[in-house]
């Protein structure tokens, strides 16, 4: 065939640019689409059919390349799955083209058209109907997660030795004996109706068990491989009009980038809605052409040329409407997503920019006006919740009820629904505690944070909110295990610069009997000053203790007694009921034993502020007291 190229007018160029943009937008979002409008559009300009197909292919692979790179950045692409399916899809394209040629040879052009329309109607009616129904069910049920179909569960459970491959996005091992036929069918459909994604994306979602966003993103890798192979095939015969391809590409790259960005703002089921709607509209479009082909083949009474022309025009108009509707839904979702995100950011900004009221007192050690309760809703947090509300009420302070959701960045990308679920659970716990605090007349707010290191989030939240006191529950772990592993509590104490109150589950901080441990250092003095302020709040009796270990000489005992007496005298001067005692033996053990004997309900200690590895490995006196004390332990910071 003599290859002649079309003279392009400005109107042609603008038209291709716009259709390219819309097709790109849809492709970036659902992984494919656009070709079913572009190819007939080029043909209507006078481009021969084979050249229209070839030029469409030549714009498709660079578009899919840009789209897949963009969506891989959002963690949505399974490259391995895309390549495996893409290679088998290429085989499907070659076979599909061969089959088309055979049908055209045997039954003529109308027979070929009827075959194409038949495939269109069957595939679009069954698959498109199912996709749309599934999307509607997800949307109307308000479900956050897509459920794997029974077929997908079965496919993921089948083990055929020697054929198994692990796919990261599916988090499963699947036999390639399943992926190869699916890829092949995708390719065959691409060769027949130009949009392989109408099979590829639903197959990955419903048969392999991929989430909608992963399936549509991975389809772009398949489209790249098919488009690249197809372009070479047609270019070898010189059928590619690179001008047409590059003009369409100019528009479609704007669209594909926008469509890819759009996927980050929508729920998974939006892919299904857009795909389902387009498929059903395309189905109607092809349905209008079937009488024309049947009439031409003589299976029904002949219809006039005028009627055939009207049906053909309606069919093409419906294709344009299908693509435009898809693009409209995507743009609407994108704008809606922008608006919701902007409101969320504004709300977060408002919270952080909330003016912090200045403290009434000047004392840095006994200020309990901004109290942060860290809770995970577990039984271990029960004591902390109760005491935090009680203390905030007594000190007339503000309570910041905080919960930290532990996240793993890799996991977060693959299962964002899980994170949303965890956040929702944590918020429910926070709301419950908030309600209890408000009923007790305590001014409070909730803080929900996510982070991979819980202690870091606690420490940074305390710093941002200018917290005076962090209240945490004590986990069951104790002894060697606790020392070796370190705990979130130990790390918070090591890194924060504010007071920390650790309460065991059964703690009952009545504020009757308080014990303070001093050692003559400035850290001990800080503990003593905090105890004085706290005893004034709680109207408590204070027992001041100092422990000596190893050297029990008179001189050493006297020295310890003078340290204790000094603090007792200072407390008495401030009207606090105080008494003193020198303990002999290991500080941690003797403090815990004395607390049990004297029915102490709160131990106050200073922190020597060691942090990091040394503290976690060795454990400090305060750490060991926290681990074994029958009551709450207050670690005071200056």
């Amino acid at each position, binding site marked *: 065939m003599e290859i002649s190229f079309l003279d392009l007018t400005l109107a042609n160029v603008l038209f291709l640019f716009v259709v390219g943009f819309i097709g790109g937008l849809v492709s970036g979002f659902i992984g494919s689409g656009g070709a079913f409008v572009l190819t007939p559009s080029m043909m209507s300009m006078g481009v021969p059919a084979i050249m229209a197909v070839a030029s469409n292919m030549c714009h498709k692979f*660079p578009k899919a*390349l840009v789209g897949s790179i963009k969506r891989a950045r959002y963690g949505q692409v399974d490259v391995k799955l895309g390549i495996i399916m893409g290679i088998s899809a290429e085989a499907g394209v070659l076979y599909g083209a061969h089959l088309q040629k055979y049908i055209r040879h045997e039954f003529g052009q109308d027979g070929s058209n009827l075959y194409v329309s038949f495939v269109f109607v069957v595939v679009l009616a069954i698959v498109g109907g199912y996709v749309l129904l599934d999307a509607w069910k997800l949307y109307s049920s308000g479900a956050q997660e897509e459920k794997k179909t029974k077929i997908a569960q079965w496919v993921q459970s089948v083990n055929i030795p020697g054929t198994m491959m692990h796919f990261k996005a599916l988090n499963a091992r699947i036999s390639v004996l399943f992926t190869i036929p699916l890829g092949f069918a995708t390719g065959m459909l691409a060769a027949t109706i130009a949009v392989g994604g109408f099979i590829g994306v639903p197959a990955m979602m419903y048969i392999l068990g991929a989430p909608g966003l992963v399936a549509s993103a991975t389809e772009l890798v398949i489209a790249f491989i098919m488009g690249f192979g197809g372009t070479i095939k047609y*270019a*070898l015969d*010189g059928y590619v009009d690179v*001008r047409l*391809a590059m003009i369409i590409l100019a528009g479609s790259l704007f669209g594909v*980038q926008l469509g890819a960005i759009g996927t980050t703002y929508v729920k998974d089921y939006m892919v299904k809605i857009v795909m389902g709607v387009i498929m059903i509209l395309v189905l109607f479009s092809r349905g209008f052409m079937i009488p024309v082909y049947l009439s031409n083949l003589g299976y029904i009474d002949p219809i006039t040329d005028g009627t055939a022309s009207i049906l053909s025009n309606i069919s093409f108009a419906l294709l344009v409407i299908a693509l435009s509707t898809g693009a409209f839904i995507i743009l609407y979702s994108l704008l809606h997503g922008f608006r919701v995100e902007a409101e969320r950011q504004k709300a977060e900004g408002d919270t952080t920019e909330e003016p912090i009221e200045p403290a009434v007192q000047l004392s840095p050690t006994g200020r309990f006006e901004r109290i942060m309760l860290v809770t995970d809703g577990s039984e271990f947090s029960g004591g902390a919740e109760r005491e935090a509300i009680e203390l905030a009420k007594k000190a007339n302070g503000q309570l910041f009820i905080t919960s930290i959701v532990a996240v793993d960045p890799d996991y977060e990308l693959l299962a964002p629904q899980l994170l949303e679920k965890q956040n929702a659970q944590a918020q429910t716990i926070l709301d419950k505690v908030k309600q209890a605090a408000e009923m007790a007349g305590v001014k409070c707010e909730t803080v929900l944070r996510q982070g991979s290191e819980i202690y870091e989030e606690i420490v940074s939240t305390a710093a941002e909110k200018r917290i005076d006191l962090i209240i945490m529950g004590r986990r069951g772990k104790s002894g060697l295990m606790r020392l070796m592993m370190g705990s979130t509590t130990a790390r918070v104490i090591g890194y924060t610069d504010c007071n920390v109150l650790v309460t065991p589950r059964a703690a009952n901080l009545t504020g009757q009997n308080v014990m303070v441990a001093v050692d003559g250092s400035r850290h001990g003095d800080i503990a003593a000053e905090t105890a004085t302020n706290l005893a004034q709040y709680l109207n408590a009796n204070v027992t001041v203790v100092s422990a000596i270990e190893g050297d029990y000489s008179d001189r050493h005992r006297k020295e310890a007694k003078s340290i204790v007496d000094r603090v007792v005298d200072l407390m008495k001067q401030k009207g606090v009921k105080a008494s003193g005692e020198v303990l002999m033996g290991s500080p941690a053990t003797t403090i815990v034993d004395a607390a049990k004997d004297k029915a102490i309900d709160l131990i106050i200690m200073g922190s020597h502020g060691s942090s990091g590895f040394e503290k976690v490995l060795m454990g400090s006196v305060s750490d060991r007291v926290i681990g074994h004390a029958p009551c709450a332990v207050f670690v005071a910071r200056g």
Partner: protein
Amino acid sequence: MDKPTKKALVPAILWGITSVALYASLYYFEKPILEASAKGGWYFIVPVTIAFIFSGVHGNFTGYFWEALGVRAKKK
């Protein structure tokens, strides 16, 4: 939608100029390019190479274009 950013503006302009230059070259060398690609055979390299070059340059331009306008992916 975020606020438009100056950070993406400079690369958007630079890639945009390169992209326009490529399209201008395609228009200017339209005849020899079409003649070469119509020959087929090993000349398949011509449209394929053009497609790759355009996807790189114009892809970067369109990416920075939306970013410069403040149209960015949602932060997780």
